[in-house]
């Protein structure tokens, strides 16, 4: 890779829960084409998937913007959903406001945000009630 920053943008459809994850699977493919190591790809794409699922479950979809530089992968997830009331609480393992139909599919374990933190080297959440949420994650290469 040269000094250029490579950018990808994916729209995350908030209406179709069953096919959620397409953007993350695409990201995985794109990162593989860039020759990034399997472990880094795995961390980036799982972190992105958890964020993507959250946008679908909790925020009616949004946009994922990815930047790949020589040093790191930056994943920015933006939505115009309800926002997160208490970020510290949301970050706790097991905390979830997911509805029952989502739980019956195996989601809503309250481990999404903790996984995103675990798999990224840096994570920042900006959220405003009634306005939306932006989550930025950096994964070192």
């Amino acid at each position, binding site marked *: 890779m040269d000094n250029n920053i490579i950018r990808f943008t994916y729209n995350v459809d908030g209406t179709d829960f069953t096919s959620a994850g397409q953007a993350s*699977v695409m990201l*995985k493919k794109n990162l593989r084409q860039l020759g990034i190591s399997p472990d880094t790809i795995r961390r980036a794409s799982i972190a992105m998937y958890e964020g993507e699922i959250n946008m679908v479950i909790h925020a009616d979809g949004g946009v994922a913007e990815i930047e790949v530089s020589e040093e790191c992968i930056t994943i920015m997830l933006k939505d115009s959903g309800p926002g997160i009331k208490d970020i510290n609480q949301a970050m706790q393992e097991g905390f979830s406001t997911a509805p029952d139909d989502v739980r019956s599919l*195996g989601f809503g374990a309250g*481990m999404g945000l903790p996984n995103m933190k675990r798999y990224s080297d840096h994570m920042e959440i900006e959220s405003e009630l009634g306005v939306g949420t932006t989550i930025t994650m950096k994964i070192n290469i």
Partner: protein
Amino acid sequence: MTVSEFAIKHSLKTLCLPDDREITGGYVGDLLSWVMGRAQSGDAWITIMSNQNILAVATLADVSCIILGEGVTLDEELIKTANDKGINVLASEADTFKLSAMLACEL
């Protein structure tokens, strides 16, 4: 041991096997975030979940195969998708405890 060797030895049904590979460990779970947080690349993932989302999880977590227990199977449509995505899927009438025990013997 590879996925196909495991299936044959323990008489599991092979729903699809597009990318036979080595099983290097195992993980059992139905809560998808737990699987993504804890399963390791190369693990055989034992679950009773059979919705479309397990295919994305298997791809991203890079498990060597999905093993469906308790007589659970995948819809034809999803088997086709799994095949296209290179995800190996086995199925069995055995419960997840017995499947875990079978797997543990081989690791």
